[in-house]
């Protein structure tokens, strides 16, 4: 009973161009499984739904095949397919109110398929429709209403009832929760997931990524009409493999994530097909940005479609088209095999004299992620960070940076590695030479690497960097020495210096500890922008859990020189596993040792009896005339209170 889509392409034709909406889609809709289709607007989600229903407009040219139980849908005559439409394959349309008839009450409209397809008498049909609507949470009182008298949620339920009324095998839901409040949304989600045990093959088209992640058994990520990635349930946010999926997830306002919304750099393109009047005359596609005025503005993307917006793209990505290949539990279309790992630490350890500062630790940083290292002072955060930056050597273990052996790299070509890693040190005042002025400090890495042609270019870059960290770049400020600045400014100068060479990895040890909240906010925003625009990977050491919550994609918790917990920020802070993490999150330090039971003076009391060590003496009462002491014994040395029965522990 499955629906199989093979090599499906859709081109919307106009006079001399074509808009390539779907390109080589291969997809199986399996009974009892929900396939969630996600992607930005214009990625072809709705086109796919409409293609399955054969509801595309005249100018759409469809290639490939859609097989329902092995029988091709596209080859059927209109009359034959009409018999299938709604009875075997039904759809809930986006923008529901518009697809209802405004002059008919909804009961009639929901009953209509029964009358048309099954030939039931009207009263029977209406009875069935009423039952079905009630089952979906529409009380009988609403059945007689017209669409404009219903709320958005009620309309959505009516549409669902209409789509399910003939018990079709394939249900296509186009943005079923788009305009719904959270309560109705979760109700509708409940209805959708109830379709699973009923053996329906569901295609859930949505931009609600959280819904897709929780409801979908399979999640298909569409970009410019191509499937970029196919993921298993629950992987969308926590283990995306494609940079596009990652960026998409970061753009979504999740309920449990505190991190600022990211985004995807650049704009989505449309893919236009056009035939060159000159040349070989064959039709081929170009990515044309939506705002590009000239139709023939060639922005050829022979390679990966996401290439212009991808932060980890290499030259190779633009060359040849990439195939969708099996990866993990799903499939992936990426020349680099998915999100690359930027830094890989395997069993690195460090010992300072008798102190084991860092127990053997594994840590991987993926390209473009922000990993926050949290923990209390002396937990080994800085040691790990400095080993990651290559500033400290590890006693044991292996380090790989951008898939090359880091130690070898450090020995052979220190300089080229230094260009890729920026470091902000913990104590900013120590990390800059007191003999250099601001301009010289920020210019130092630029001078060392000589990538800029002349001092004017360097000065311009310095001004740009200072603007990034919200510092002035006037001549007076540039000539200042570190000791003439406040610590916050020095810290920002350090940050500007670390970013000077546009590193791909920034290791920052408490880079904002000396900043006031307003400047910190701006600086962090700038860093996150770099993450989105340049794919900057950030290893951020902090003891501020609130800060980590706000900027981290992942959080690693360190305690006593060891990594005790690591995971997505939402999981580590929302559902901490390690007791130490729980304490950190709750802001409570380890509990002090319990005070000895019994009388506080018992240890030194000359008259102490057994009871003094077991029971706390009575506190001083409120009687103003009484001479009172906190003691079990009266002046004669007799115990005042009899021990409670069984109270002797």
């Amino acid at each position: 009973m499955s629906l199989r889509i093979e090599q499906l392409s859709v081109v919307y034709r106009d006079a001399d161009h074509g808009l390539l909406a779907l390109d080589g889609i291969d997809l199986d809709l399996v009974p009892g499984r929900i396939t969630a289709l996600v992607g930005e607007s214009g990625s072809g989600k709705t086109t796919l739904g409409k293609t399955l229903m054969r509801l595309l407009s005249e100018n759409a040219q469809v290639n490939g095949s859609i097989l329902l139980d092995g029988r091709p849908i596209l080859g059927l005559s209109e009359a034959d397919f009409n018999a299938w439409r709604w009875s075997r394959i039904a759809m809930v349309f986006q923008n529901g109110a518009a697809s209802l008839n405004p002059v008919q009450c909804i009961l009639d409209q929901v009953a209509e398929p029964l009358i048309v397809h099954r030939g039931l008498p009207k009263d029977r049909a209406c009875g069935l429709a009423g039952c079905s609507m009630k089952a979906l949470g529409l009380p009988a009182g609403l059945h007689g209403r017209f669409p404009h008298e219903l709320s958005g949620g009620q309309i959505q339920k009516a549409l669902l009832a209409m789509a399910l009324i003939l018990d079709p095998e394939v249900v296509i839901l186009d943005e079923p929760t788009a305009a719904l409040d959270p309560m109705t949304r979760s109700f509708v989600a409940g209805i959708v997931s109830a379709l699973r045990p009923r053996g329906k093959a569901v295609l859930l088209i949505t931009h609600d990524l959280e819904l897709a992640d929780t409801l979908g058994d399979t999640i298909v990520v569409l970009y410019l009409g191509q499937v970029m990635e196919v993921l298993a349930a629950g992987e969308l946010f926590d283990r995306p493999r494609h940079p596009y999926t990652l960026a998409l997830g970061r753009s979504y306002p999740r309920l449990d994530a505190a991190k600022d919304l990211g985004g995807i750099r650049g704009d989505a393109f449309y893919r236009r097909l056009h035939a060159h009047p000159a040349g070989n005359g064959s039709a081929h596609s170009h990515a044309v940005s939506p705002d590009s005025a000239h139709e023939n503005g060639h922005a050829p993307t022979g390679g990966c479609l996401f290439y212009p917006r991808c932060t980890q793209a290499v030259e190779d990505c633009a060359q040849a088209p990439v195939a969708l290949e099996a990866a993990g539990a799903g499939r992936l279309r990426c020349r680099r095999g998915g999100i690359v790992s930027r830094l890989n630490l395997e069993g690195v350890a460090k010992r300072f004299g008798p102190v084991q500062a860092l127990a053997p630790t594994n840590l991987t940083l993926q390209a473009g992620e922000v990993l926050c290292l949290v923990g209390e002072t002396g937990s080994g955060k800085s040691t790990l960070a400095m080993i990651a930056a290559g500033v400290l050597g590890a006693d044991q273990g292996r380090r790989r940076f951008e898939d090359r052996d880091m130690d070898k790299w450090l020995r052979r070509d220190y300089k080229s590695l230094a260009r890729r890693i920026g470091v902000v040190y913990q104590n900013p005042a120590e990390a800059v030479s007191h003999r250099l002025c601001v301009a010289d400090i920020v210019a130092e890495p630029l001078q060392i690497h000589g990538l800029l042609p002349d001092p004017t270019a360097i000065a311009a870059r310095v001004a740009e960097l200072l603007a990034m960290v919200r510092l002035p770049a006037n001549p007076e400020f540039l000539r200042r020495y570190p000791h003439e600045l406040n610590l916050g400014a020095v810290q920002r100068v350090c940050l500007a210096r670390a970013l000077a060479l546009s590193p791909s990895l920034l290791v920052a040890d408490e880079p904002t500890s000396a900043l006031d909240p307003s400047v910190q906010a701006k600086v962090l925003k700038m860093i996150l922008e770099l993450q989105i625009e340049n794919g900057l990977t950030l290893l951020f050491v902090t003891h501020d859990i609130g800060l980590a919550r706000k900027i981290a994609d992942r959080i690693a918790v360190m305690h006593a020189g060891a990594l005790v917990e690591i995971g997505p920020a939402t999981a580590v802070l929302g559902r901490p596993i390690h007791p130490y993490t729980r304490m950190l999150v709750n802001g409570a330090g380890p509990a002090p040792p319990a005070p000895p039971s019994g009388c506080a003076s018992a240890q030194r009391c000359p008259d102490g009896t057994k009871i003094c060590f077991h029971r706390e003496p009575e506190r001083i009462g409120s009687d103003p005339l009484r001479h009172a002491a906190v003691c079990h014994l009266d002046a004669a040395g007799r115990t005042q209170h009899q021990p409670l029965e069984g109270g002797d522990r």
Partner: protein
Amino acid sequence: MHVDPFGKLQSDPWFLSGLGLALLLGLAVMLGPLAAPYDPHDMSFVPLASPSAAHWLGVNDGGMDIFVELLYGLRNTVAFGMAAGGLALVLAALIGMAAAWYGGWADAVFMRLADVLLAIPAVMILIVAAAFFRPVPLSLALLLALLTWPSTAKGIRAQALVVKNRRHILASRQMGASNARIIIRHLVPELFPFYLIAFAAKARMAMFMEATLAFLGLFDPSRKSLGLMISFALKYYYLDIWWNWLLPPVFVLSLLIMAVTFLAVSLEKRFDPRLQEAL
């Protein structure tokens, strides 16, 4: 941290008196040839004449004006001291920095060499070399520098080792800076006051050494020198010339050594915080 290096010096009597003397002697050195009324090698005057308006300090046994001889002798002594001091400092800085920065093998070799040289008395070598090879003064200055760099080099090495592990130098290293860049941009300027002190000490020693060698007659006798003047004056000790012939070179030499010593002491006080507390 960043300090105004000469702020406190302005009220230091050591520095002020040293500076005053140095300026006075410096003026004499600079303007000597212009101020001298006669050629230093002019032997046409009445030998052993007493001081007069024409010859302020009289005439020596060879018929040369003693005042002019004094001016030229001072010039030679100062030049020798500067040259030897400068050469020793450059040598010491190069070796000290290299030993501190590169460590390991370079450090071990240079520092053992320094220990060996410290154990050899420089005066002996210098006297022997001067007597046997009759070198030009500059070669002798170089030899002196080659013999006396170790103490300064050890000091520079110790200072550089402290500075080497400062975080901003580690940061510079992390940024990919070459050894040369770090040494020139960060290490060398960091030790600045130390050079002045070391230079003053070496120059003082070299000046005294020059006077000694000249006194012993190990220099070309035609070369004017304070030491040589003292040596000749002593030969005519039985005449009553001590106040106009013997005393002036002794006095000038003493002033010169004092000037340099005072400057060195005041600088050392200023830049070595431990000394600052002690004094």
